[in-house]
């Protein structure tokens, strides 16, 4: 009986501590930090968008952390460029390949610091694994569902056959769970042209309107900067991407 009471008291104390943590977090959040999670289809370009967004933020913000939460099948992972990104001043939470030696086929374990990453101060960019299952990784991140700053952006590439039509993208977004905005990242790798980006912008923007979500941006390779300008054909701001991911094959 005594043992059960002690356990009960301990549990209450833990609950109080947790509540304090959440309050602290919410309090901290009032300082308007940026916390963005990038989700999307396999090969949609979410990692490229996330890396570039983090580096762009770093130009004006002192404290930016990029988190590699792509556990579904991390064949493209931030691991190979982790040190390079760190040298540029970015906080990077990601495994390095050497740390995963010996883990075998389960080499995509969660690093403990990933679980608590939202408790860090400053701006945080999360690169999330693909599909609906990928978005569920947020269930493992402490405070993800309470963090008022967390915005989840779905990255759409109309070059992906399963997200190439209005209907398919709409169905995809509606099945994805909480999403706060859409990003058009329509491309065909090296074979991309401006017309393809603009057609994607029109389609993704139409989906955004139909599901009542804002368009955050169109993303495009920096080689299109001169011809594409600051806004796409439907008026979304264009974020230019320097391509890092071709160097990040596991």
């Amino acid at each position, binding site marked *: 009986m005594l043992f059960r009471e002690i356990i009960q008291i301990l549990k209450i104390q833990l609950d109080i501590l947790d509540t304090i943590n959440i309050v602290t977090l919410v309090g901290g959040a009032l300082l308007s930090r940026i916390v963005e999670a990038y989700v999307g289809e*396999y*090969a949609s370009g979410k990692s490229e968008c996330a890396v570039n967004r983090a580096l762009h933020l770093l130009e004006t913000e002192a404290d930016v952390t990029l988190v590699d939460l792509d556990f579904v*099948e991390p*064949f*493209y992972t931030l691991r190979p460029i982790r040190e390079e990104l760190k040298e540029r001043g970015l906080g990077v939470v990601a495994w390095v390949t050497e740390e995963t030696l010996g883990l*075998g*086929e389960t*080499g995509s374990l969660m690093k403990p610091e990933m679980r608590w990453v939202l408790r860090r101060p400053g701006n945080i960019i999360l690169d999330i694994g693909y599909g609906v299952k990928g978005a569920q990784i947020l269930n493992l991140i402490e405070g993800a569902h309470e963090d008022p700053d967390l915005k989840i952006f779905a990255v759409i*590439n109309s*070059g*992906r*056959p*399963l997200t*190439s039509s209005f209907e398919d993208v709409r169905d995809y977004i509606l099945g994805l769970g909480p999403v706060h905005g859409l990003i058009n990242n329509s*491309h*065909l*790798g*090296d*074979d991309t042209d401006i017309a393809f980006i603009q057609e994607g912008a029109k389609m993704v923007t139409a989906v955004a309107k139909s599901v009542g979500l804002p368009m955050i941006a169109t993303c495009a390779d920096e080689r299109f900067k001169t011809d594409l300008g600051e806004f796409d054909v439907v008026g979304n701001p264009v974020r230019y991407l320097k391509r890092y991911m071709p160097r990040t*094959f*596991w």
Partner: protein
Amino acid sequence: MAEKPIQGEKRVFMTGNEVVAWAAVAAQADIMYGYPITPQNEIMHYWTRMAPKFDKKFLQTEDEISAGFTTLGGTLSGKRAFTATAGPGNTLMQEPMSLAEMLRIPAVFVIQQRGGPSTATVIYSQQEVTLTTFGGNGEGHRIVYATATHQELFDYTIKAFNTAWKYRFPTFVLGDGYQAKMRESLMIYDPESKGITMVPTEPIVGAPGMPGVDRDPVHLRNCLNTEEELYDIVKEHQRNYDAIWAEIEEHDAQNCEDADIVIVSAGVVCRSALVAMEQLRREGIKVGYFRPITLRPFPANAMKAALANAKKMLIVESAEGQLARLVKDAIYGLTVPIETLFKPGVGITSEEIIDRIQGLNK
């Protein structure tokens, strides 16, 4: 009737595994059987994702032995059936693959090679060349296409169904973990829009009518009473295989006529070999490029012709000489010295090939 998965043609950006799933749908495959193993999983993921939309079926089995045998069952019933596997799964599947050779079952197998032996890595290798070409307790009466690009994964997956059903030998698409996971653009298409007609399928067992009355009975045997029966059957298979050899074999030879050294490679390594050849040619070094596209049957005559004037050949592969064994068998009688760049389970860059050839020329 489900809508056509692809109208005309369309440029898309995909991973290799997705390409295979889309190609199978485009080829009007009816059913996939499978058991999960990296790096082929997304073939199953995307096939099952598309299956309800296009009225396709999928059966997940308890292991790869079962996946292979159920693929044969589906094929025998007249369905355009396929499976996909890798590494240890490929090892387990050799028994049904052998049965397909014995009974001439036109099943299609997609292999995405991973590191071996055994479980090894989930990533990449070319260490399943021997297993895929000559695995099983038979004579390698199978057809194996080794792809290098996403476009080829699409083209040859479609082709594999037609080759299998036309010639009635089990047919393989041999990719690898890099191709499986890499992403690049390609043109996907409705085969009809390219003038490709899918070879019709038919029930091999259970056809309509009374056997012996309305039609000849089908007597499929893989367990024989006498050595002589086996001898006759295997010899017949070999005669049939030899007869179609020239029709099926495919290769790519470039700049071999005046080459001092010919780079020989297969699969995804060809991409590096091609870049190396082009770079070295620009530097004035006479380098040629030879690539067997079919590893079974092997384009032996074309290879001998490509090496006719060569002073050396360099065999490059992500395995410890598995392609080299096929090459040596094919070119028996030639005296061209063989140099090798073997990197089992590891990717090979064009720079490494260039360094090697520049080293040979010093």
